């Protein structure tokens, strides 16, 4: 039995870079070091904005109020950043603040998915696809496949998920770009196979659209 290793999350920018290099698309955005730089960053992007507080202490952003959505102006974005910083110092005093990420808010998707992976002690890297969002643990829809993926694994994992009908033209809505979702799953698989230090990857939610799949949040543990 191997000794327990301390897992740490990679900085969001590094996680994003590893995934973007493998074809995963994220919303357009910019990282800034402090709240006073948020407004300028926002002016280079299209509203509405999302502002995320970046701190090693904050792993699940929605639980800590470390993400603000629907900000209609650069000023609103800056105000949100200041408010989150104050709240952070109040709730977790003495914690490090890495900065903020200002992003274009992704429009409402056809479905929210979870795409992730782990390095299993017995079977090695494995990846999963299923219904995502905040209720992910309640929905329990994960389909797992061993990585590297072979033989239609990605296609099969997407199509056998319980959320698939939402992706397939639900009640007159358009079909989602299934190949784009398969590519996200494949990217996570390749990342785990190619980077042995990585132990867990969590993309939740991934937003599915008719012509695109967008990773809205990403966590990579090593």
């Amino acid at each position, binding site marked *: *039995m191997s000794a327990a290793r301390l897992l740490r999350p990679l900085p969001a920018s590094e996680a994003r870079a590893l995934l973007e290099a493998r074809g995963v698309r994220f919303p357009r955005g910019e990282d800034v070091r402090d709240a006073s730089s948020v407004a300028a960053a926002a002016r280079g992007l299209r509203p509405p904005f999302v502002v995320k507080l970046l701190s090693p202490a904050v792993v699940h952003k929605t639980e800590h109020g470390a993400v603000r959505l629907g900000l209609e102006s650069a000023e609103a974005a800056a105000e949100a950043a200041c408010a989150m910083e104050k709240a952070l110092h109040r709730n977790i005093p003495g914690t490090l603040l890495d900065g903020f990420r200002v992003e274009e808010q992704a429009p409402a998707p056809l479905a929210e998915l979870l795409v992730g992976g*782990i390095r*299993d*002690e*017995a*079977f*090695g890297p*494995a990846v*999963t696809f299923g219904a995502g969002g905040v209720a992910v643990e309640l929905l329990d829809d*994960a*389909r*797992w*496949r*061993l990585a590297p993926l*072979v*033989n*239609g*694994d990605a296609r099969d994992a997407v199509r*056998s998920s319980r959320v698939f009908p939402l992706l397939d033209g639900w009640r007159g809505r358009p079909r989602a770009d299934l190949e784009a979702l398969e590519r996200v799953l494949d990217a996570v698989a390749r990342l785990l196979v190619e980077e042995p230090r990585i132990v867990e990857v969590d993309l939740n939610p991934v937003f599915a659209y008719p012509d695109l799949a967008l990773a809205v949040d990403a966590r990579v543990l090593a």
Partner: protein
Amino acid sequence: MDPAPNALDSLRRPRSIAIVGASADGSKAGGVILAGLLSGTFPGPVWPVNPRHGSLLGRPCFPSLAALPSMPELVIVATPAAAAPDAVREAAAVGARAVVVVASGFAEAGEEGRRIQDGMRDVARAAGMRLLGPNGLGVMDPRSGVDSFFIPAGRLGRPRPGPIAVLSQSGVFALAAVERLSHEGPGVSLALSYGNRADLGESDALEALADDPGTGAVALVMESVDDGPRFLHAAARCAALKPVVALKCGRGEAGAAAVRSHTGALAGRAAIYGAAFHRAGVVEARGLDDLLDGAKALAMQPPAPGRRLLVVTNGGGFGAACADAAAAEGLDLPPVAGTAATALRERLASFASPRNPVDVTAVAADGDFGAVLDAAFVPAGSPFDAAIVSCLSAAPGITEGIARRIAVAGREAGRPVVALHLGGARGVAIGRALESAGVPVYPTPERAVAAVRALVLRGEAVARTRVATRAGRRRAARHEAVLS
């Protein structure tokens, strides 16, 4: 021609058996095993070993393995844990090829037990002797008569010889499987309860069973895996040749915690086992019924080439229940259409519309079921990949003859049929007739549909392997072209 020798040969077909810790006391493991072997069909010598007795059950009893008239190929150690390591050492010393240790109190009990268990394993390996157990029921081969399961015949059924192999890390699951398969199903080729898996485990067994002509389907119960890559390879190789269905025990946190203490091994994440089974072409069972119902179907019927199900019933409620269960399992029930529908309309007064399930009504006779299958399921152009025949055999028109009718239709179609069957005292005879004819029987709509699901998953696994093999051959051909 005899198959090449494998890891299980000395367990399944030894020339001779010695029982260390043998007894005349039917409440002791050594007593049950001795009595069972002596009254069973094992053709070779059975030598009880126990320094406290000069004879047992009318046979000479020997003070030690060294005192035996010749080398015992298989040694069953039925002593308590404390005496087992010496017995294993002695077995190695006399040249036994395999040893079964049934006692508990080893790795599952703690670090000291793990140390002693590892010691037994090392002794066995140094002597080139295979070790099964400890903390398991050992081996049961109905064809050869080898049986180390220490539960007397009055309390545990003994299956007849047949195609299903049961491999189990859990003792109670091994017992449950053996007991059920002694009452239903096509019979058992081998039951292996390997417990703590000090030496022999599921990978060894899967490798051996892949080439075993007497095994047509494998049912596997796992709580943990020792060597993931080896298991994947062994399972894939076996599943390429015959259906394998597996149940991972300890799915949730609570179950997983129980498993961790049960055999002293790390359980691993249950969901990842699903990924491993999928990769290896193994059908995953969701519980005990799913496992044994699936194994039965897989041993008796061909895989289903798709998800389209035909249900024929003489009880409307069961037809509807099958349809509901099928929807929940992702199986389709397309309507009966075209020439089949026309034929049925002519044949059956009740067949007013091309509905599926097809309700032949309670007055239907054997021939009506046959007519529906002949018209809708047997023809090459039939849109159905599998059929469930739901026959309440208490109905007046149903006789044992229905078994042959259904079995023949299935064979002519080349696609699987299962029976959902309910009936009283007469029903038992009809159920037996169905299974003797090769049609697996299930007592509820949900279980009949789950059995079809197993056949569908096997069909999909076979198709994936075929694609992989073709892709592999194409890659090899391209590689060849580059080289030449």
